[in-house]
């Protein structure tokens, strides 16, 4: 186990979590979802956060994605401290810095594949061409189809195109293969891995499937709301060779 966390004022790391804690209040009961979590991720890495359900990985994702506030600690992304952001700043942060891929794709049912990508770039100043993005995820022929007319894998491709078109600093993926079959899941992971290698995009994948650890540059294991270990893979395996 190598602790990459260095502390101090200089932050060469792209993502840094510093003693982050999160407590929910449900009625009278306080639930500690995350305790003293610290780790960092470097630019251009594929990072897999793995753990069982309820381990706290989604809480990390929410905080990193600017969807939730933290109760303690600090978070940096590319030198910016997110932990101090108010609601409006968080919205802007999600808007310009983060790309999000959901387990259930979350495409707007009433928009075609192309339009779903357009929806995201509508609100961005600097973005990629939606039609080109659709082409790049291999759906050029199906750009005019509605989500209901696409398979799960195709829908997830649209979701990835939608996230990437915004030119985010960070791509967050929540169980991206969770709702897909084995082969389709692998194809999606390959798309993510290729994107990362080609464009140098930093990708954080949250999953309960530890088989994905092999494809990552960095693996963060969480359990019962704490970070158990942070490891780096010197030689990540191409997705094609992973099996589960």
């Amino acid at each position, binding site marked *: 186990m190598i602790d990459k966390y260095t502390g101090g004022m200089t932050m060469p790391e792209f993502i840094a979590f510093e003693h982050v804690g999160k407590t929910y209040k449900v009625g009278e009961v306080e639930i500690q979802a995350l305790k003293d979590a610290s780790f960092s991720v470097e630019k251009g890495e594929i990072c897999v956060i793995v753990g069982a359900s309820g381990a706290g990985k989604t809480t990390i994702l929410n905080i990193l994605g600017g969807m939730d506030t933290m109760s303690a600690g600090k978070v940096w992304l590319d030198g910016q401290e997110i932990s101090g952001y108010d609601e409006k700043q968080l*919205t802007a942060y999600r808007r310009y810095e983060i790309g999000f891929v959901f387990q259930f794709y*979350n495409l707007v*049912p009433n*928009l075609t594949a192309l339009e779903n990508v357009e929806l995201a770039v509508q*609100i961005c100043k600097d973005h990629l061409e939606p039609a080109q993005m659709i082409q790049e995820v291999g759906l050029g022929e199906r750009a005019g189809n*509605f989500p209901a007319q696409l398979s799960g894998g195709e829908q997830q491709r649209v979701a990835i195109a939608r996230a990437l078109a915004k030119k985010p600093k960070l791509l967050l993926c929540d169980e991206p293969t969770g709702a897909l079959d084995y082969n389709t899941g692998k194809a999606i992971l390959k798309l993510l891995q290729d994107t990362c290698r080609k464009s140098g995009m930093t990708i954080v994948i949250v999953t309960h499937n530890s088989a994905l650890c092999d494809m990552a540059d960095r693996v963060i294991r969480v359990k019962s709301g704490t970070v158990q270990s942070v490891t780096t893979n010197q030689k990540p395996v191409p997705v094609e060779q992973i099996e589960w």
Partner: protein
Amino acid sequence: MRELAKSTIREIKSSKGRYLAIFFIIALGVGFFAGLCTCRPSFVKTAEKYFDQQNFYDYCLRSNVGFGKDSAEAFLENKEIAAVQGVCYEDVLAAVDGNDVVFRVYSVPENINELRLVSGRMPAADGECVVDEAYFKEDVLGDTISFSDANRESTKSAFRHLEYTVVGTVSSPLYISSDRGTTSLGDGTIKAFLFVKEECFTADYYKELYVVLKEREEIYSEAYRENILEKKQMITEIGQKQAETRIKNLLMQSQKNNVSSLAAEQSNTASVYVLTRDENAGYASFEQDSKIIENISVVFPVFFFLVAALVCVTTMTRMVDEQRTQIGVWKAMGYSKLAVSSKYLFYSGTAGLTGSIIGFFTGTFLIPMILWYAYRSAYDFAERPEYIFDWKMFLICTAIAAFCTAGTALFCCQKELSEMPASILRPRMPQNGKRVFMEKLKGLWQRIGFLHKVSLRNAFRYKKRFFLIVFGISGCTALLLTGFGIRDSVQGVTDYQYGEITLYDAEVTFVKSMEKEERQEFLERHADNIRETVFLSECSVDAKLGKRKKSTKLVSVVDGELENFFHLRHNNEDVAYPKDGEIILCTGIADGIGAKVGDTIVLVGSLFQEVSVTVSGIFDNYIGNYLFVSERTMAQLEEEVSSAAYIHFYKDSDFERIKNKDSGEESLLTELLKDETVGHVALSTEYKKKVETSFASLDLVVLLIIVCAGILAFIVLFNLININIGERLREIATLKVLGFFSSECSAYVFREVDLLTVIGALCGLVFGKFLHSFVMSQVSPGNICFDERIAWGSYIASVAATLVFAWLVKLAMQRRLKEINMTESLKSVE
């Protein structure tokens, strides 16, 4: 089963907004329906209570010789008659603040048409009187009213005293409306009534006899009318006998005193008139006015119930949709179809039932109360209406409410329930996106902004929702337009009638038919005051076309040109005065008998003599009904005619003198009335005022409609947006994750609502125009045709008010949107 019950109760707690939406729309529908339906029975009961208390008459008898003071006994011999009351009365001029006004002075009745003391006490001595509480204020107590010197000698000699001290103010059941009747004295209108002791009258006979029957049917009912009609003959016979007895007595007296009694000589034959309650202005107009509400009460509630049903359908569909998985779980655990659906039955059923109960009681209490308050400006005989809680009505309302709520719930969950548990448990396929018709217009579609495209697709995608909002909002706009339109129409009537149709200053009715020389003499006598005159002859006829018949006034011009007095026109085109054998009809009569230009109609006179005439034109007229024919056609009918004239006074200064009697000069009016040939003078300005006051109560009805429209819009929009947001939680949460600011988020969601609101409002204008003309045709009181024009301002105001209501709802729903948690986007599809 206990768990299912618990789950149901928790369901209600966790979706208060939805539960309340069903509750309120049912409460509103039932309340409005029951409230409006109960108004007429409630008001009739109020009137009945009052009339019973005051022992209101059933028959009023008059004869040309009056009735002897002992006539009562003869009536009371008849077992069907409960009470008889003779009264003396006289119209007198009395000075009030230096001006002579006309009062009708009655003898105080003992047991029929009893007075209600408002302040002070009843007269105890000869020189005392009680007065009309509507005309006099309380501080009149102790004042002295003296009859004017200008009274005729015969009037003065009818009283023992010419001065009376006011000891009390009273109201009389003979005058429940503000109408105090007309007279041949003064300006022709009676201002107030006075009651003095019978001994104050010098006459040894009664002018009128009032009779009350023992049998009392409900007032205004068919049974009452039939009973009265049945016994009218009997009453007439007794009256006839009494009048004949009086003539005999008079003759005997005059022979004894060897003085020629004028009354006895003039009338060797007694003629008796028997009037019923329907001839009492207040009694009759109260019935007319209460019918107006009854007519309105049919239209509006039907509409509210339709919206209620739609709200229930959409709400329950959404709820069952949301709970698809839950239904699957219940079924998988082995609960029966009935058990599972009972949850939804209970949910919607209780909302509907409580809504119905609360709505019913609030409605039957609140609406009569509000409308009675409006009525009190015209009929001030009771503080509050008699409330009626009709159990049959309650059951009907509750049955309809149950059908709308529980029925739709059952209908909505049928589909889900008939599926296998396994297939319900599987997440449903995402709903298919659809292109809208506008996308076919490539050029147009490409110009529309991206986010607007989304809104357009959403707006047209869900048929049920589209229909609900367009229907609900159009209903709101239609109600508003009707409300504003009623005001326009009513205001339009008087303005149009007195500004553009009847142009004369006054209408003079002569006591007899005037020959050419007499007309000339009349004009010469009043040459100082009258600028212009047209002489007419008039009579009453029935206009008949096929089986439809209407009684009306037939008028022909005898001398002069009608043009400057009565503007004959239709649809902005002048209508020519009819030639011989032709007739022109006012719109009211034309609509009433269904006559068109070119039709041949039959005029029927009082002795059933008939004349056929061709309709050569139809002219606009709103107040009163007239037919115009040529003088020769009039003569063909061989009917006894009376003479009348429309006159213009000299302008400005002279006309001002009428209104401003302080000048000390004799007013034009009294000048005219002094003329022996003149029977009655009606000033257009006075008449206009009278019509306007009778419309005053409509303002509150308009307000009621506007408030209801607001509530309707609120419920429909609230429910719709609530469902819309509920259905799109994931979508909205995703938008938030994508970084939409909250203003962008609400624009994304509400834009389609805006679009549908505007569509609804525009449809509402069309719908409202129909509703308005329907309502106006229903509320039209007999001889008044309403102008169905609606002012442009009202169209704009109704749309604007609708948009404001919608905006308020959006404001309230903004919070709900803010509260949506982004983590919703991470959840699986339900």
